[in-house]
């Protein structure tokens, strides 16, 4: 395989899962809305794109299989009566294509030929019913040719298409409207210019009111490939005049195209004029083809279009490269802090100005680099539709999934851990939470259970809630099992939260018999360990027969935080800024040194000393000494941290700590300061958890 081919294959393998997820989702949506024409078209388009993509890297097993499937889907979807079994059949076909891709392209190993041929026969039996030919038999379909099928790799480029159509076919009342076609076209990109022109034959006294006497010229800016644009005219191609042309970058004269589409000039006018050397606009005026106003309008549109093309261009960058950029931004921030320290020691106006500029640029650079890693959580959540559908069937349960806040953005490096966590929570909800329909009806609930996934940003954290309206957790059963397994002691009084949190313990399960989905006591343990990897936490709220809610809290990013730096003892500490409530000075005489409780405006505030925790005393907390207290808040819990110095806000690049240092230390990492010293970053949640009992 040559280098080019290898790059194509890499590109395909990095993208196909996304197409698969979307396809699965479309099929599931269609199952719920079988008459939705838009979804049908989208399914066909995606499958077509997938086939084209495969065609670039493989030209035998997979392409032929997808081609057959495409034909079957095309005919099955447009049958008068919906056969609901077909949706399961389509989903299984997707699974099989996924298997083919894995075996042939990922693992480079063979496939089970017998099974392949058997599946081909199944598809062909459908095909025979619908007289579908295989790809080698014909140039199937009305628009497709090899070049079109393979043009998907340009999918993300913005291209300009000139679409000309005249609908001359005989029309029956209320069957189609040009408005609908234009609507469909507008969904594929941005209509730069549209012009509907009457044909010369229109005559009010003799016209057929059911015939369309207009034709359209549309300039469309889109990242879709040619076959996808052509698919809009799926049912019109045979009996109408339709021409769709992709305008190449080399030959495109935007102003010319705009004027052509407005019907002010013809294509030939442009070609003739291009032979001279004057500016095209001026030449058209000289030739009396347009007036000054036409030129001015077209120039404005041209400017807007060029601007749009510029900002909408997309480029795929490997995540690794973005990580390198993030690292470099981190280094820049550290170096800048270093410069800041030097600036403070040298009084130099010019240096200060330069440093201020670097400060500003670093901040902007950080924001841009940070945004590059942020992706909508929908990319992750879309995968659960299929899983929930399949498991509902398996368990004989009816379950609706509602996703809210799918546009919430999250650092992509958190995806893997989050996916694992959600997977186990949802599986457990289906297996243990949601009741079978008969049981639900007896309880006065709706027949179908509900799984609701909500994502949103709050106080600099990403919150993901997964709730079900099932039977809720059984506290007594969990407690009993925990005693049996010697995880809890019968003699100790535990809070509800402590008992519920047992479900995350290794090997814990209340189910007597494990199945393929859950019950081995592994799943929820994975949730906790995965979330720990990404500094995430999870909380449970549950109510008998009402349901269970899992609330996951994740940091926005793993790389850089906005922090608040203090000095305590010999060390610098950074507290994530979003937890800071207030700062005040305290005379240690006013502090009860036995329990370190301070009366803050009538409320008891537990105060902790980082010097004590980290054993890095610089000064004794002697009486009469004035210190600072930083009050931090999390989940309505307050705690005060004693500080010798408050150094202010800092953008901290998080560097991992080795486990030995981090253990029980309530730290999430460290950061290197400008002067080379190390600051420890406080894990506020764990700190509060550890000391809140003492505070209460």
């Amino acid at each position, binding site marked *: 395989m040559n280098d080019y081919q290898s790059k194509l294959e890499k590109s395909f393998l990095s993208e196909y899962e996304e197409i698969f997820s979307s396809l699965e989702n479309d099929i599931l949506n269609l199952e719920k809305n079988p008459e939705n024409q838009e979804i049908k078209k989208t399914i066909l388009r995606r499958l077509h794109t997938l086939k084209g993509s495969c065609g670039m890297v493989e030209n035998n097993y997979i392409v032929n299989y997808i081609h057959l499937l495409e034909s079957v889907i095309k005919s099955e979807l447009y049958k008068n009566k919906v056969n609901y079994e077909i949706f399961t059949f389509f989903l299984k076909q997707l699974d099989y294509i996924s298997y083919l891709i894995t075996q042939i392209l990922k693992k480079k190993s063979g496939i089970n030929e017998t099974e392949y041929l058997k599946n081909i026969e199944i598809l062909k039996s459908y095909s025979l019913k619908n007289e579908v030919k295989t790809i080698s038999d014909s140039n199937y379909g009305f628009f497709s040719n090899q070049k079109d099928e393979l043009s998907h790799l340009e999918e993300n480029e913005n291209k300009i298409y000139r679409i000309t159509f005249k609908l001359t076919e005989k029309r029956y009342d209320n069957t189609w409207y040009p408005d609908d076609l*234009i609507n469909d076209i507008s969904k594929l990109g941005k209509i730069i210019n549209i012009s509907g022109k009457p044909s010369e034959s229109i005559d009010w006294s003799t016209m057929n009111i059911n015939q369309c006497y207009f034709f*359209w010229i549309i300039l469309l800016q889109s990242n879709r490939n040619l076959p996808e644009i052509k698919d809009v005219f799926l049912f019109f191609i045979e009996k109408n005049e339709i021409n769709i042309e992709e305008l190449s970058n080399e030959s495109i004269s935007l102003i010319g195209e705009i004027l052509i589409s407005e019907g002010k000039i013809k294509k030939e006018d442009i070609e003739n004029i291009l032979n001279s050397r004057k500016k095209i606009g001026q030449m058209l005026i000289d030739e009396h083809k347009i007036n000054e106003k036409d030129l001015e309008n077209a120039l404005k549109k041209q400017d807007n279009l060029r601007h749009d093309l510029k900002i909408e261009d997309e480029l795929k960058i490997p995540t690794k490269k973005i990580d390198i950029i993030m690292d470099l931004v981190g280094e820049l921030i550290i170096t800048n802090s270093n410069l800041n320290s030097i600036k403070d020691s040298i009084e130099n106006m010019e240096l200060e100005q330069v440093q201020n500029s670097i400060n500003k640029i670093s901040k902007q650079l950080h924001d841009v680099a940070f945004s590059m890693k942020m992706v909508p959580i929908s990319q992750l959540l879309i995968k659960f539709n299929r899983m929930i559908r399949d498991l509902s069937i398996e368990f004989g349960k009816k379950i609706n999934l509602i996703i809210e806040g799918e546009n919430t953005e999250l650092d992509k490096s958190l995806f893997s851990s989050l996916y694992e966590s959600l997977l186990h929570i949802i599986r457990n909800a289906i297996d243990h939470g949601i009741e079978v329909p008969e049981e639900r009806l007896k309880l006065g609930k709706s027949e179908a259970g509900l799984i609701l996934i909500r994502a949103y940003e709050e106080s600099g954290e990403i919150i993901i809630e997964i709730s079900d309206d099932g039977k809720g957790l059984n506290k007594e059963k969990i407690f009993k099992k925990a005693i049996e397994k010697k995880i809890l002691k019968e003699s100790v009084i535990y809070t509800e939260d402590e008992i519920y949190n047992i479900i995350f313990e290794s090997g814990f399960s209340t189910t007597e018999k494990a199945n393929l989905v859950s019950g081995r006591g592994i799943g929820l343990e994975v949730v906790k360990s995965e979330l720990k990897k990404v500094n995430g936490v999870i909380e449970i709220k549950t109510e008998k027969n009402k349901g269970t809610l899992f609330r996951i809290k994740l940091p926005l990013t793993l790389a850089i935080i906005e922090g608040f730096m203090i000095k305590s003892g010999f060390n610098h500490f950074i507290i994530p800024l979003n937890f800071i409530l207030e700062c005040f000075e305290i005379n240690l005489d006013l502090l009860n040194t036995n329990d370190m409780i301070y009366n803050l405006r009538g409320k008891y505030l537990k105060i902790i000393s980082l010097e004590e925790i980290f054993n890095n005393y610089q000064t004794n907390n002697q009486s009469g000494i004035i210190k600072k207290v930083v009050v931090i808040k999390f989940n309505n819990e307050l705690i005060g941290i004693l500080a010798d110095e408050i150094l202010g806000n800092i953008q901290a690049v998080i560097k991992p700590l080795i486990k030995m240092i981090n253990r029980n230390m309530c730290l999430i990492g460290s950061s290197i300061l400008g002067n080379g010293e190390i600051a420890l970053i406080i894990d506020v949640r764990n700190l509060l958890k550890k000391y809140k009992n003492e505070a209460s």
Partner: protein
Amino acid sequence: MIKKGEKNKIDILIPSGLIEENISSFKKELSDLNLEDQLNKSGSNKFLIIFDLSKITEIDFFGYQHLYAFYLYLKKKSNVTNIVINNESEVFMNFIKKLGLSFNE
């Protein structure tokens, strides 16, 4: 649909539902205006015709096409000096913008 009898000026108020279902009745109303007769009888008199589109609240392509064809039909009459499109409703404006249509072709 109203036709004002002001001298050398004909006002035509286009009905609210300019949609396919209404084309037949719309055509009948236009025919009933007997504009053809009026223009023929006027001899050398020149007319200004005004289309008032303020009432249009519903429109589809075939409704529009019919109105446009009528506009062209009148425009070709030798004693019509001009046809003014007046008071276009928002629905009408949005529709022609979306479909790239214009009466000034």
